[in-house]
């Protein structure tokens, strides 16, 4: 048996001439929390929908728990989907909703009752069984949808932007609860979102989807700190993207010329290629530092300051001609004003050479 619970092998979905998913290869381990992250229209929901069985792939194979389920309808897969709008049955009580899947499985009444109560307790809605769905708040409806899904103990729980409709505060709370739920059930979750902060805070692995392809895949800190593509660097948060040209590639090192100077990277890349270098705003620090591991950015001129609570985001101009626009995050205690000028530097190891 395979190590992986879910395997997508070259899965594609075409609608006429548009390609919603393009040769997706993806593996999900047992007990993993995977997030499919991407902008709207990127194909992430299509990928989820193919895992759930609501969309039939145009080509490729989908294997769950060692079985090829490519052509198996949703009910006969070990997956359950939690929909974006929850899709709670409006004419049923909370209890009836949660026990629906169990009664479809002809689970004896006593057992059904127990499993339903357990699920409701798990999501913190014990005692809500007799409520009508429309009497609940958005967050509570979300919990009912979760309880309904976990009641049938799916091997894989598929969540289609389940937190999208919630207020920011409840969303943060639900993110934590989702992680707790997933760890305590030991279940495998696949979660779709377009919010990169949400993705980072809940996932074991992120699959970043763009134009039907997986742009980047890995643990959140890796994807954030060492994005492998230009799209990934941009999508995962504010970043300084510098254009550069490879001028040397010898001895396992590559040298790239950019407007802020010559930068050194591990590995050998094609000589003469035009490339992009990414540097996160918080990785630029104030002060003067010297050393072989340091990129000195020289004097910068602050052109705009935006106070963002946890930090101050500054638009600055760097370089000899002051023609390089950079974003810098300064700590909140460091008071900067438009027109200020100061020396800044960054660590060479923080800069990332991007594959275009």
């Amino acid at each position: 048996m395979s190590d992986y619970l879910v395997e997508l092998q070259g899965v594609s979905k075409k609608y006429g001439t548009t390609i919603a998913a393009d040769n997706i290869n993806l593996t999900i381990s047992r007990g993993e929390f995977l997030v499919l992250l991407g902008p709207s229209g990127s194909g992430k929901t299509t990928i989820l929908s193919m895992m759930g069985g609501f969309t039939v792939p145009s080509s490729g194979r989908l294997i769950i728990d060692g079985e090829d389920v490519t052509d198996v309808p949703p009910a006969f897969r070990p997956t359950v989907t939690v929909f974006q709008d929850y899709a709670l049955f409006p004419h049923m009580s909370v209890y009836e909703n949660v026990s629906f899947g169990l009664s479809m499985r002809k689970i004896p009444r006593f057992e059904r009752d127990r499993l339903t109560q357990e699920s409701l307790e798990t999501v913190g809605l014990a005692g809500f069984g007799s409520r009508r769905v429309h009497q609940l708040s958005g967050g509570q409806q979300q919990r009912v949808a979760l309880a309904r899904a976990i009641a049938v103990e799916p091997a894989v729980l598929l969540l289609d932007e389940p937190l999208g409709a919630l207020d920011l505060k409840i969303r943060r709370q639900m993110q934590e609860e989702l992680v707790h739920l997933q760890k305590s059930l030991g279940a495998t979750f696949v979660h779709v979102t377009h919010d990169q902060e949400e993705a980072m805070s809940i996932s074991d692995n992120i699959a970043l989807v763009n134009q039907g392809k997986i742009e980047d895949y890995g643990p959140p800190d890796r994807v954030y700190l060492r994005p492998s593509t230009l799209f990934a660097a941009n999508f995962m948060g504010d970043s300084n993207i510098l254009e550069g040209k490879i001028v040397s590639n010898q001895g396992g090192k590559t040298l790239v010329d950019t407007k802020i100077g010559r930068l050194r990277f591990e590995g050998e890349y094609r000589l003469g290629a035009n490339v992009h270098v990414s540097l996160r705003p918080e990785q630029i620090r104030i002060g003067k530092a010297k050393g072989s591991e340091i990129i000195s950015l020289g004097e910068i001129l602050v052109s705009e300051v935006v106070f963002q609570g946890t930090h101050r985001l500054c638009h600055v101009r760097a370089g000899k001609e002051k023609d390089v626009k950079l974003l810098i995050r300064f700590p909140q205690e460091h008071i900067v004003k438009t027109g200020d000028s100061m020396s800044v530097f960054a660590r060479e190891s923080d800069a990332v050479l991007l594959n275009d």
Partner: protein
Amino acid sequence: MSAPGKPVAANIQFELSRWAVHPAIIFTLVFFIIPLVAMVIISFWQRIYGKLQASWTVANYEKFFGRDYLLEALYNSIEVTLLTLAISILLAYPLAYILAYKVPSRWQRFVLILTVLPFWTAYVVRSYSWLLIISENGILNVALIAIGLIDQPLEMAYGRGATVLGFVHFFTMLLTLTIYANLVQIKASYHKAAADLGANPLQIFFRITFPLSIPGVAVGAFITFVIAIGDYITPQILGGSTEVLVPQAIMLQIARAANFPMASVMSITLMIVVVIVYFIIGKYLKMDRI
């Protein structure tokens, strides 16, 4: 926890709902499309000594378009329908406008229901009710004589005017409904924005409200046209024997002579008129939104 296991339902049933549209489609094909096709075929057949002969001929059409009195029925029908339409729109538009913009919103539902309630007046007695009002000793003549406006009862019933009156009464309600439904969909912010940009109330109406309400008028007008041009009861009861409209002519062919080919020719002609009207106002119609 014990695993709840797999669903009991059989796999193959998943696609059963693909057949859900078929009963309705088959029913419509059998009891609507086939009869229309039969009608078209019959219209090219002939009646010889009271029996239908499957001999192909355009004689029925020649007869219909060749005889003045038959063709006149068509003209009459179109005239009466257009007159009805014009008056109904003129009456219904202000009413819908008042409902949508002048009546306070908490009363709107109530007043709207009040306005369309007589829709459900029994169809066969709707025209008859007008007879009670406009006939020689009807309530209107009695009232006019009582207040001394006239000495002799007016001849109002049994004529084109009476037919149009009966139609206008019904279709004013219908058009009010479709126009109102359209007007309330126009966002209040459009009016505010137009006023903010300096448009006066008249300009707001002609540049914003009216153009946006044309689909509501078009839908109501099309339904009115379809129903009015094919209505038998209203001209039969209110119109009297002064003029014949196509539906009356059709019923005469059926009832007196059982002349199905001729009745078919007339029916098809009416349908063609409706199709022409559909293409004229079709671009404003969104039938899928009715």
